């Protein structure tokens, strides 16, 4: 891993260029959405908590939701010099950490997060080229902006590049 490591908190996003690496720790039902322009080596990482800002009470933080966070990050990477047409996306997360027989909506939010992210990416014309979602375990994700490699680390299920 070359360059500096930039931490992305929950309900936050960061954009940058090679040789930086953007990392977000400990995602459960949250999703880490990465964007990357392979030619300009510019990208971003967004850590969303919830799918839909219209179903929540007002929030000062658009990065908390898929529907408001993704367009915001697209604008920022384009402003940094990426080409929107070349952007590719990868997503990881969306787990269900505890399984109850009577799982409430809040428990299944991981699945809804993943579905909404895909929908918002599609609506914005961004191609989703890889995903690692679902399951019952946490993930730490990072994108190396020199290569576009998106690493997904887990406690018991090893580490993979998607």
């Amino acid at each position: 891993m070359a360059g500096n490591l930039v931490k992305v908190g929950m309900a936050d996003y960061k954009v940058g260029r090679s040789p930086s690496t953007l990392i977000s720790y400990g995602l459960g039902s949250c999703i880490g959405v990465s964007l990357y322009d392979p030619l300009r080596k510019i990208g971003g990482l967004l850590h969303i908590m919830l799918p839909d800002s219209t179903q929540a009470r007002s929030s000062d933080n658009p990065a908390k939701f898929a529907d408001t966070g993704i367009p915001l990050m697209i604008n920022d990477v384009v402003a940094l010099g990426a080409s929107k047409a070349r952007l590719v996306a990868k997503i990881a997360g969306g787990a269900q950490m505890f399984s109850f027989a009577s799982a409430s909506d809040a428990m299944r939010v991981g699945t809804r997060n993943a579905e909404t992210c895909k929908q918002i990416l599609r609506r914005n014309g961004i191609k989703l080229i890889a995903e690692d979602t679902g399951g019952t375990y946490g993930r730490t994700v990072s994108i190396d902006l020199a290569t576009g490699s998106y690493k997904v680390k887990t406690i018991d299920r090893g580490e993979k590049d998607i």
Partner: protein
Amino acid sequence: MIDEFDLTPAQLDAMREIGNIGAGNSATALSQIVNKKIDMNVPQVSLIPIEDVPDLVGGPDALVVAVFLRVYGKAPGNILFVMPKKNAFYLVDGLMGKPLGTTQELDEMGASALKEAGNILAGSYLNAFFHFTKISMLPSIPALAIDMAGAILNVVLVQLGQMGDYAMVIETKFLAEDDSINGHFFLVPDPGSLSTIVKAVGVE
């Protein structure tokens, strides 16, 4: 609904006192089960940005064991008992009457013991809570996870995240005399529950 920013110092004190009595009861229960003196600190009642909550237990990628219970009743919420893995294994040893350090991996028996401990802690906490507020509440069956703290806390934070950007947490640290069984006990009331609780204690 009472705005969480507007709790008066007296109301915050009342919340702290509820946490104190609840956690005191839990600590006593725990120390009786494992036959060890267990202390607790004065509960922290704090309103913190949601994204900072994982820092309370060592950061979002800290490996922890957590027992999670949903709380049903007039003031619903969530209870989480979070421990570093090492301490959770010590607790299993204590619960099973084995020498400290015996448990190296969590089998079904150990997992079940931890869930039961979570159950007892939550039950004694809510029982004390009832005596103070007359709000009767019941815990769900416990669920257990061993994973990154951030991922586990997600479950609780997502529900709060729907309502706002801050979390009201009543947090108590447990500490065994020999440092073996340390953990964090969280009561996280649902956003709407706070006003119910404050009203019940009758503090302006």
